[in-house]
Every structure is written in structure tokens, then in C-alpha cells.
């Protein structure tokens, strides 16, 4: 290929939200990689100010259509910590289930509908050949697995998108015994499909390695919702409430999102980070049946983010079946919300990585200040550095092929641009 060229991708497909990419190569040197998140900012951190804290989580869930449950629960956690509200053990259990339902549906969307077509050389899952037995099976499995995740979210949270039942203090409705059985059956029925998906991603032909750091919330039973510490591949563990103090906000004037560094170095959050750091905490049935897949980690091949997600999907099935079959849910009222001035942090593992909310309330329970750090913002610099290396390593590929390699790499991160368009700080100069 030529020694100097530009690559421009507009409106990258099969990701959540809008982004463009600009790569500039001069004399075989990559001069510039700009991931231009073009998603329009909707200013939620400003809009939440002056609103009653109790209603804030349902507004904030509108930041993102696909991982709305993560925003909802993280904001609820922040508000509860600001006001000193203690919730019941059952509430914690239901929130874990809500996260499992979210993960199963959201990871299925990414693995089957966004990444799998790349592996099978198709543009879309809707182009899979119904007459080809393997492709026919995969398309059915895609929609069955997604439906099982949706059913779990609906059972626990009332809906998969913008769930109405989780509130500050608890849940407004508790699942009934007769509603639980069919969902358990549905989850069980897709377990083998997820194991087959792992087989496909284990044979990942795409390969890209670059040494970086990994960061995730340390969740005791890999539940994505509880945990007091953030762990990193630098062997540093920090209390999650102090997370923000370790992040450095990077100015990226070409992108409507924020970039971050962790203690001055780039890092990655998401399924690959969780699998690299915490896989010993996966459900015991997952550890048995996905043994071969889990043994691949730790790895710094970004394309194994897809495999990591498929392992998490199995874990969500196993962990939620375990809870649903071994718990008698009782009707209970949500914890009382007594307005109080305070400062609270919410930290959860959203499907794409660590999500952080800082909430400050005044004495009548009105939000006076809020900050959010979302996963894709944290991955932005890492994605750009990966693209730089990918281009440098493949300068002799035809431009069209190189562009496809870049698209696959970005897609492997499962970026979410709706979430990413949030700034920590507003001033660049």
C-alpha cells in the first residue's frame, strides 16, 4: 500500500450509537487516530441538578437504551449512599438478577448480532443462510438467548428497556412464584446454545495483542452490582468510592465524549478486564462447563472480549437459575426514603465495564451535583492506541481490508456511544 494515506469511516455500523473514525498515515507513520464520537450530548449531568433524588434514577436510565438497567441501578446506589438508605438482602438479590438479565440480553446483542457476522464473513445476522444448518441454528439461538435475557429482566425489573420496578429503597413489585418457573425453564433451554457460542469464539481467528492495563470492580460472586473495591492488573486495589480520584480526564476536542487514564496510563474496562482479573468468582457450574474457555484468560487479545462476554452469559444463566430456584421471595415494602443532605457514590460493572456515579443531595433530597464516568469513555484512548498499532502492523494490507480490520477491532470492544457522550468536566481550555 501507499506510504501515505487516510482512512475515514463515517457512522460505523453494528455498534450502539454514532461514531466516525479518522486515521492519518504519512511516510509509513501513523500520525493521527481520532475516534470521533459523534453522538450528540444530551447533558444529563446538568439536567439532573435541582431534581428530586428519588426520581433521578429513572431519568438517568434514559442515557442509554441498551444498558439502561445499569444506569438505573448505579444511580439508585449513589442516591441511597448519599441519603444513608439501607436496603434489604432480598433487594440486593433482585438487583443482581436484574443485572444478569441485562447482561444476557445485551451481550447476546453484541456477540450474535454485531460480532458474529464478522466471523462468518456476513454483513448482518439477517443475511445468515437459513438453508445452511449451522447458520440456521445460530440465527435461532441468537433470538432465543436474547429473549431469555429479556424474560429475566421483565420478571424482576418489569421491562428490559427502561425498567419501571427498581426504585430508591427497593422494588415496587416482587416476582411471584408462578412467574418464576417459566423463566427458569427458558434460561435452562438456552444454556447449550451459549456453550456452542463459546466454541465459536474460542476458535477466534482474529488476533490483536497490545499490552495495556485492565480495571474492574471486584464483585464477590461475579454479580456486577456489589463490591467495595476496584482492582487492576497493576496489582493495585482501591476503594471503589475513591475511583474518580485515580482517573485523569483527557481532553479530546474532536470527540463528544471524555477520555480517561488510570494513574497516568491507558486501560481497558469490560468483559475482557473482568475475565482477566476475577474469573475465579464465576458460578461453579460455569467454571465446570466453560473450563476450556476460561483457561484462555488472562489474555490481551482484544478479540477475546467476545469470548469473555459469552462466558459471562453462561454465568448469568447459572447464577440466576441458582437464585431463582433457591429463594422464596416475600412481598416487602421498599425502605423508607428520608431526604437528607449527603454525598454518595454508586459503582457497578455495566456490560461494557465499570460505571461510576457521584451523587450529592441537599437536605430536602434535591440533587445538587452529579458526575458520571461511563465505560466507553474509559476505553476511548485504549481503542485509539490499539488502532494505531493495528495500522502500523498492517501497513501493507489493501486499504479496504485494513479498514475492515479496524472496524472489527472497534466492534470487539462493544462500544456504546450513547453512554460515552458524557463529560466529567466541561472546560477543555
Amino acid at each position, binding site marked *: 500500500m501507499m506510504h501515505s494515506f487516510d482512512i475515514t469511516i463515517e457512522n460505523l*455500523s453494528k455498534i450502539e450509537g454514532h461514531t466516525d473514525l479518522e486515521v492519518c498515515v504519512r511516510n509509513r507513520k501513523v500520525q493521527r487516530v481520532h475516534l470521533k464520537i459523534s453522538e450528540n*450530548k*444530551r447533558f444529563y449531568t446538568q439536567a439532573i441538578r435541582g431534581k428530586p433524588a428519588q426520581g433521578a434514577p429513572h431519568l438517568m436510565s434514559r442515557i442509554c*437504551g441498551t444498558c439502561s438497567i445499569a444506569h438505573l441501578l448505579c444511580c439508585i446506589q449513589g442516591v441511597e449512599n448519599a441519603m444513608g438508605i439501607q436496603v434489604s438482602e432480598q433487594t440486593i438479590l433482585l438487583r443482581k438478577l436484574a443485572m444478569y438479565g441485562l447482561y444476557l440480553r445485551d451481550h447476546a446483542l453484541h456477540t450474535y448480532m454485531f460480532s458474529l457476522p464478522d466471523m462468518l464473513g456476513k454483513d*448482518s445476522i439477517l443475511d445468515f443462510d437459513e438453508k445452511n444448518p449451522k447458520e440456521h441454528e445460530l440465527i435461532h439461538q441468537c433470538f432465543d438467548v*436474547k429473549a431469555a435475557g429479556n424474560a429475566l429482566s421483565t420478571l424482576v425489573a418489569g421491562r428490559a*428497556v427502561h425498567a419501571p420496578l427498581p426504585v430508591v429503597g427497593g422494588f415496587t413489585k416482587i416476582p411471584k412464584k408462578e412467574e418464576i418457573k417459566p423463566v427458569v425453564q427458558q434460561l435452562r433451554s438456552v444454556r447449550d446454545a451459549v456453550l456452542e457460542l463459546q466454541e465459536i469464539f474460542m476458535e477466534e481467528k482474529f488476533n490483536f495483542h497490545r499490552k495495556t492495563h485492565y480495571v474492574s470492580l471486584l464483585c464477590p460472586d461475579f454479580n456486577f452490582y456489589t463490591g467495595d473495591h476496584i482492582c487492576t492488573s497493576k496489582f493495585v486495589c482501591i476503594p471503589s468510592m475513591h475511583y474518580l480520584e485515580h482517573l485523569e480526564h483527557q481532553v479530546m476536542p474532536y470527540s463528544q465524549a471524555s477520555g480517561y487514564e488510570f494513574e497516568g496510563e491507558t486501560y481497558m474496562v469490560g468483559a475482557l478486564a473482568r475475565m482477566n482479573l476475577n474469573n475465579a468468582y464465576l458460578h461453579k457450574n460455569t467454571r465446570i462447563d466453560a473450563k476450556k474457555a476460561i483457561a484462555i484468560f488472562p489474555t490481551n487479545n482484544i478479540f477475546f472480549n467476545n469470548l469473555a462476554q459469552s462466558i459471562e452469559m453462561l454465568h448469568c444463566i447459572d447464577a440466576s437459575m441458582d437464585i431463582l430456584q433457591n429463594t422464596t421471595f416475600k412481598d416487602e415494602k421498599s425502605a423508607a426514603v428520608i431526604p437528607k443532605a449527603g454525598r454518595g457514590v454508586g459503582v457497578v460493572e455495566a456490560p461494557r465495564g465499570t460505571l461510576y456515579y457521584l451523587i450529592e443531595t441537599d437536605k430536602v433530597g434535591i440533587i445538587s451535583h452529579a458526575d458520571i464516568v461511563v465505560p466507553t469513555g474509559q476505553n476511548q484512548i485504549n481503542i485509539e492506541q490499539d488502532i494505531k498499532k493495528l495500522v502500523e502492523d498492517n501497513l501493507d494490507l489493501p486499504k479496504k481490508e485494513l479498514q475492515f480490520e479496524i472496524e472489527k477491532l472497534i466492534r470487539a470492544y462493544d462500544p456504546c456511544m450513547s453512554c460515552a457522550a458524557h463529560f466529567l468536566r466541561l472546560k477543555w481550555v
Partner: protein
Amino acid sequence: MKKTPRKLRVGWFSFACCEDSTIMMTEMLNTRWQEWTKKIDFVHARILRTEKELKNIDVSFVEGAMATDKDIRRVKEIRKNSKYVVAIGACAVDGMPAAQRNLFDEKTKKEIGYILEHFRHREKVVPVKKVIKVDDFVAGCPMQEDVFLKVLDKYLKKFGVA
């Protein structure tokens, strides 16, 4: 030789929003994909496939509010190349919550002013109907599934597909 049945040529677009209605569509596919792949050709849907040339669309579903000059140019192009346009979800139908910055006080407006200027945001965020002619509306946050299905059915019938 049997004639290939006509499919409804659908476009699916999003602007300033959280794409919840797009996610709803991918969830509706869980039970309807076999029926829809027979009846619908998603000629332009970034969530499902690589974008192609924008032309000759029967019905375009538009999610999200209009926030920038670029949005307005784009939605006008969609209108020009679509026989019908349907606004889906609260942001496209009413502007909110994407338009919440319209209600900010002067101090907050000043705080975000630099970003608005830098990325060429318009002074006000507006619903789709303020910019182009909209033929149908599916309200809700996310859009109401039953209303969407009725509207879709109406266009399938109109184009002789169902």
C-alpha cells in the same frame, strides 16, 4: 417462474436519543424475525448492517430529536428519499428528554455553551415534526410496542406486502 414477493423497504435512523426504540426493535425481532425477513427489507439500519446509499425507501422510522445543523441536513435527506416518515419514541415525537437543555437556566446554559458552539449544536433541540413532514407518530419512552406494530402493519398493507 414464481415472482419474488415485494418487501417493504424500511429505513431505520437515530439522532439525539438513547436508541431505546432501536433496542426495542431488536427485541421484537426475537419473536418476529422469521415473519419480518419475509416481509421487510431493512435497506438502511445501522444497528443491523453496514450503511448503504440512502434512496428509494418506502418507510423511514426516525428515532431521536434534532440537535445540530448536521441532524437537520440528514433528516431532510431522509425525507427526500422516503415515501413515508414515522417518528418513534419520545425524543423524536416531543423532543424530550433529549431537549432538556432548552429549559436550563442562564448559568447552566453558559456552562455548556462552549460545547454547543464547538460541535455546532443549535440553540434549541426540537422534535422531528419541526423540521420535516412526519406521517405517523409512535410515542413512548421507549416507544409503545403495540402502537408501533399497528403503524408497521398499516404500511405493510399500504404497499401490498401483508
